[in-house]
């Protein structure tokens, strides 16, 4: 199966890409994917105090098992001006 990781704003600047398609086995968890992205892009700020991890635009647990065509994104805290 394949999932995608979308990069917004600062993340797109740092990775120079908008989207990564990643082939996975069937038991990959969100946390595993987060670890992989941190390894690929160590300069990306992805800690808990900086972003929320979302799958298909829904806040998710790091234990959730990914399924095909899932879209992961990392959303910063926005409080409104």
């Amino acid at each position, binding site marked *: 199966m394949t999932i995608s990781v979308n990069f*917004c*704003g*600062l993340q*797109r*600047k740092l990775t120079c890409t908008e989207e990564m398609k990643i082939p996975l086995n069937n038991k990959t968890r969100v946390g595993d994917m987060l670890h992989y992205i941190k390894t690929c892009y160590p300069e990306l*700020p992805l800690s*808990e*105090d*900086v972003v*929320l991890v*979302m799958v298909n*635009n*829904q*806040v998710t647990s790091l234990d959730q098992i990914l399924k095909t065509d899932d879209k992961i*994104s990392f*959303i*910063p*805290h*926005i*409080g*409104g*001006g």
Partner: protein
Amino acid sequence: MKILKSIEYKPASVQGGYTDRILQVDVGSQNISIVTLPPDFKDRYIGGRGYALKLIWDSTSKETRYDSAENILVMASGPLCGDPRFPGSGKFIVGTISPLTDTFIDSNVGGHYAPILKLCGFDALAVSGISRGDVVLIVDGDEGTISIAEAPAFGEDIDHGALSYGEALVKEFSNGDLDGNIAAVTAGVGSCNARFGIINSLFYDKRRSRLRAKQAGRGGTGTVMRHKGLKAVIVRSSLSRVQGNNPVDKEGVKQAGSSLKKVVSQMDPQQLRLASWGTTGLVEYMNKFHILPVNNYQYGNHPDAPETFAEVFLDRYLSKNIPDGCYQGCNLACAKGAENIKLTRGPQEGRKVGVDGPEYETIGAVTCMGIFDPHFIMEYNWYCDEYSLDSISMGVTTSFLMECVQRGYLSTEDIGYDLSWGNISGADHLLHETARGEGFGRICGLGVHRAKRWVAEQHATKMAVSFEEVMTELSKFAMEVKGLEFSMYITKESLAQQGGYGFALKGPQHDEAWLIFIDQVYKEIPSFEMKAAALKWFPLIRTWFNAVGLCKLPWIDVRHPEAAKTRNPAQNMPTLEYYAKYLNSTVGGQKTVQDILDDSERLQLLQKLINLRQGKGTRSSDQIPLRAMGPVFFNEYESRADYYDEWLKEQMGEKEYPVNAVGRHRMIMEIRQEAYQRLCDAVYKEKGYTLEAVPLPETLERFGLLDHESLALLNEFGVGLKEKLVSN
């Protein structure tokens, strides 16, 4: 300048953040007076918005409208305004009776004006009366004079523009030099012709070698200023702003400021990057979550939206490597700007100008018209500032009129030119007409609430149909509450933010409550009770920022690294503790965050009383357009049918699910309307109001606001001392 009236005075010194003086100027009689405030005034009304509320509560009546001579235009700082050692300390509040809402409006704005006014010896300026001719007020702390002068003329193009006129005026005042010890507020020709005129706060930026502008944008404060015949106010003081507040604990202020600056410099580059991108970075996230207004809030995202993302403005327009900011010492420095932007449209075509912005709201106002052209956004930004038109209300009113065209309530013949979605030429034409008060611009300048009535009257007469029926249809997509246009966030999928706009005392501006992400995206407040609690807590803390003269962004848009470990991360309590320390170190005392919230609640209740008096305080005034609740028309439902069908299935559970799309659409809207009414009940209970949104006497009593006058007002709404809590 021809001086009409002048007095000499000795500026009061600032002690613990206050001067305890208000400058009162009646531009009609040209009376200038300095009022010393009673000792307990600052304890009860704090500053900024609180001072404006109290002055207007005392000096106006339910008959007062924006153009009444007794209406007061208040510009007030607060005790924490002015010290560069703490980020975001250049803010002040403009408060008055609004030409849009007919009740109290407050609009916060940055710059150097309020810190300098304070050093001139005044916590606030209150302007009443109406001058026969245009005048300028000059408060010169260095010379110890306060003067009313005949507004000098510099030629029509300059005289009509707030930015151009401000620069010419300041140069004339200071013998040709621009100077960091001088600031001004101005309003241009748009404020003479539209109800949503703004006040520009001008200050000298030595890095850019020009005057820069921030705006008190909402509710028509500029319209009031120009109606009074007041064209500008200049303030001057060369006193040092560092420790200018004379805080009781200088070291405490330094520590609080250093702590916050450290968080900002550590976290902002990893989060929203406001210091680099300003608020333009929000566009992408709003588009991603269907919150960016497109075609008058019909849709929340658009394939062309990336043309308005932060990188576009950063790469093409914004000056890089200049530490911006609307006040010295702020390391969040989100006030981005661009230089030498060539105007390609309008009466100033060909001129190269400096643009202060764009901010997210101005970009959203343009996408709301279906336009995704970044250069037009830059020009629209500059012209709105120069004319002194609120870029939000201008965009929302234009969008409303565009939708009237789409749905057949207006035609090209009615308007005189094409005003369909995405038509830059039409939108641009309407902007200049509105500023000049010409052609169809006279209708646009009324704002959505009044333009809606005009359209309904025209259409009902032309088509021989019922005026009321047309009004009902138009009200579905006329994006205003209490007479104020919505700011630039789609609320369809966030019930909490529907309330954030509906319950906002001034009308639907997000600075009282912005709950979309914690509700719709992060899903941190799922129940009605949790939403109601948030709809009490956030407006209270946000009101406090408006009272003390501080910017909210270093608190709300830079998450402290320790916040994730707290019970409610969105409240960002670790950062709020720095604010409490700054307060106590400046004014003295040991206030907690809860004490701060209590102070704020008194101000909110006072504003509620003004709203009740002005006819905008009950449940009916908190109702929002159906467009704000959900996909009011079928085309909006169709654009996200899969999403809405899934949403409906979750709501229905085991109940029967409509087989056809029309039935599903109808049911969605019925559920949404019911939910909003349940939210009203929950919020009124949380706030200590009746179900009609009237404060209970015991609620007023708790904050020392129950007196003969307020009780008589409650009685008008059938609430007496016997009323019980809503929950009983």
